[in-house]
């Protein structure tokens, strides 16, 4: 039985050892998103975007005299409990100056409270639920558009440009997917369009033929999908297999080159997606980013660009602050300064949302995402 007593004391030591950290001068940036589990494929694009930004900053010499930037990564496996635990771990480490964090709105929302209480700047590259910035936390910033911006713009484009009058809406029952498609529905009906139906699917599911078979006789002009590219590519392919001709439109969650590969170029021809900011491909730094990302990690993911920008904004703010001082960084982010980035000029309003209200629409033409116009 004395084995048990020794095992217990071992755990006690390990627990405390994990707590304290090394003490040479370093600036830490935290990054947290789902790195394991079913959403790992999307979560890891955030890790890699931030990693690229940090590596490039360190390569160009010290951000601040004598300080290198270190990335601290914590997996929140899209669970609010673990996101709160990760936030508390970040804030309890004095060297962590800012956090690029959380993918799911359901994680970002409770974590934002922790960052606010501890006065640590947090920039989310992906949580688009409008409620989060309404909590009045001055430490919360967001580089991605909110659903209530992207949804209406997409509806406007669908109604006017595509001339769609009857649309069927599908969402993936996530905070992001549902929020986006609800906003789209509201705006589309406001413009006089007709929503034939609004059905949810389960994330991680593969077979949507029953739902699409039900949609076909309704012959919608357009199918709008609120969700991420894995499910969207399946919907597109299966719709074409059931020879449903209606084009598919989605939000920034489906704007990803993998969508075309998975759904096959022929099936995904004519798919539309809205995206924040001007056409990324046109900006020169974007080309370098894409090249650097692909050499290091492979295909650019849905939130690689966003997290890259979020990390760079944090790094620039730290440079401007002149010292690893959390409060200074928050003030710099808050005082309406514009930060150049591959998404265009990012500026935060008083609630922390990006003023970058331009939304561009992209279309798949012979195997490539092609910029159509800004809305």
């Amino acid at each position, binding site marked *: 039985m004395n084995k048990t007593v020794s095992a217990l004391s071992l755990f006690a030591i390990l627990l405390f050892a994990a707590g304290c950290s090394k003490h040479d001068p370093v600036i830490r940036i935290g990054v947290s998103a789902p*790195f*394991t*589990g*079913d959403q*790992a*494929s999307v*979560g*890891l694009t955030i890790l890699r975007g931030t990693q690229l930004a940090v590596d490039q900053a360190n390569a160009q010499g010290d951000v601040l005299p004598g300080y290198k930037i270190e990335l601290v990564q914590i997996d929140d496996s899209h669970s609010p409990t673990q996101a709160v635990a990760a936030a508390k771990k970040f804030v309890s480490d004095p060297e962590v100056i800012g956090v690029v964090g959380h993918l799911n709105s359901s994680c970002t929302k409770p974590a934002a409270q922790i960052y606010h209480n501890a006065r640590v700047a947090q920039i989310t590259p992906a949580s688009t639920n409008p409620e989060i910035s309404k909590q009045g936390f001055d430490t919360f910033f967001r580089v991605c558009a909110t659903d209530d911006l992207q949804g209406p713009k997409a509806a406007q484009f669908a109604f006017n440009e595509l001339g769609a009058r009857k649309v069927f809406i599908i969402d993936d*029952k996530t905070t992001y997917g549902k929020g986006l498609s609800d906003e789209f529905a509201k705006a589309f009906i406001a413009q006089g369009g007709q929503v034939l139906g609004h*059905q*949810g*699917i*389960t994330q*991680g*599911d*593969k*077979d*949507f*033929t*029953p*739902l699409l*078979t*039900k949609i*076909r*006789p309704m012959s919608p002009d357009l199918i709008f999908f609120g969700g991420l590219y*894995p499910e969207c*590519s*399946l919907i597109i*392919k299966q719709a074409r*297999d*059931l*020879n449903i001709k209606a084009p598919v439109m989605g939000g920034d969650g489906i704007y990803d080159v*993998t969508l075309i*590969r*998975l*759904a*096959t170029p*022929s099936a995904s021809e004519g798919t539309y997606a809205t995206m924040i900011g001007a056409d990324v491909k046109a900006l020169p730094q974007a080309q370098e980013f894409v090249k650097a990302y692909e050499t290091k990690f492979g*295909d650019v*993911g849905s939130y690689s660009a966003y997290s890259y920008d979020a990390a760079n904004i944090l790094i620039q703010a730290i440079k401007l602050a002149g010292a690893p001082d959390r409060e200074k960084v928050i003030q710099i982010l808050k005082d309406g300064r514009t930060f150049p980035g591959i998404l265009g000029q990012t500026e935060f309003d008083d609630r922390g949302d990006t003023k970058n209200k331009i939304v561009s629409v992209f279309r798949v033409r012979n195997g490539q995402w092609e910029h159509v116009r800004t809305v």
Partner: protein
Amino acid sequence: MELFVQQLINGLTIGTIYALIALGYTMVYGIIQLINFAHGEVFMVGAYIGLTAITFFGFVSGSTLPMAMLYLAVMLLISMAGSGLLGIVIDQIAYRPIRNSPRLVALISAIGVSFVLQNAVMLIYGPQDQGVPQIVPDIHFIFGDVTITLMQIMILAVSLVLMVFLNFLVQHTQLGRAMRATSQDHKMARLVGINVNWIISLTFFIGSAMAAVGGVLFGLYYHTVNFHDGYLAGLKAFTAAVLGGIGNIPGAMVGGVLIGLAEGLGAGYISSEWKNVFAFVILVLILLFKPTGLFGERVADRA
């Protein structure tokens, strides 16, 4: 009316894939009364092995039909062999040492194996969805409003052939008799000279190989594979095995098709949000009112 037929086809296609996986559950349960929780993961690994096989041979998509058939055959054989071996390895490492422990111990070990497999594949292949190249040419046969793709026909054909072969193997061959004997009573089987351990390994091999075929077809049909697919498909396939009567091979085949149809028609006519609920509701209902399933036999426990 065409709508109903189309939903039938959708349900049948996914149903046969569930059936192929369900066979593995039924055979393993029949032999050692173990619910092989990791069987869903073996199905997923089968899909990945098939995918690796094609990329290894550098397949060019869109080629002629006979070439496609050749590639498909190669893909199936390799993944059947690979998953089959994996099945045996899992049994030897995780189940054999605790063969005589209560089933709760084996169940926990099986859950551990499924975690290991899931995360191992994620670490090797990376977490994002893997695209599966289009081997079977993308031809649609349209009858009025009803369309059926060549891939769907391939799935039905391959599964049917395999199921008939398996039924023949189990019912009419010397090996099949040994398997059925072992499932009745290990001690007696040993007495009449059957190498029980070899039979158990063989059952794991065949069950895993069947699941691998399901995995390959699943990958080709949906064009994507993800390390997390095994969990849900595994649960549905287990429901199918229980519906048919756990331990009963024809039962697993029928059960798989029924679950596929229930999902297809349920999602089509009721609502796709509740799609996964239908399978679980059926599972709970069968176990409560007819635990032996449609074809299972009553296991009386004597005082």
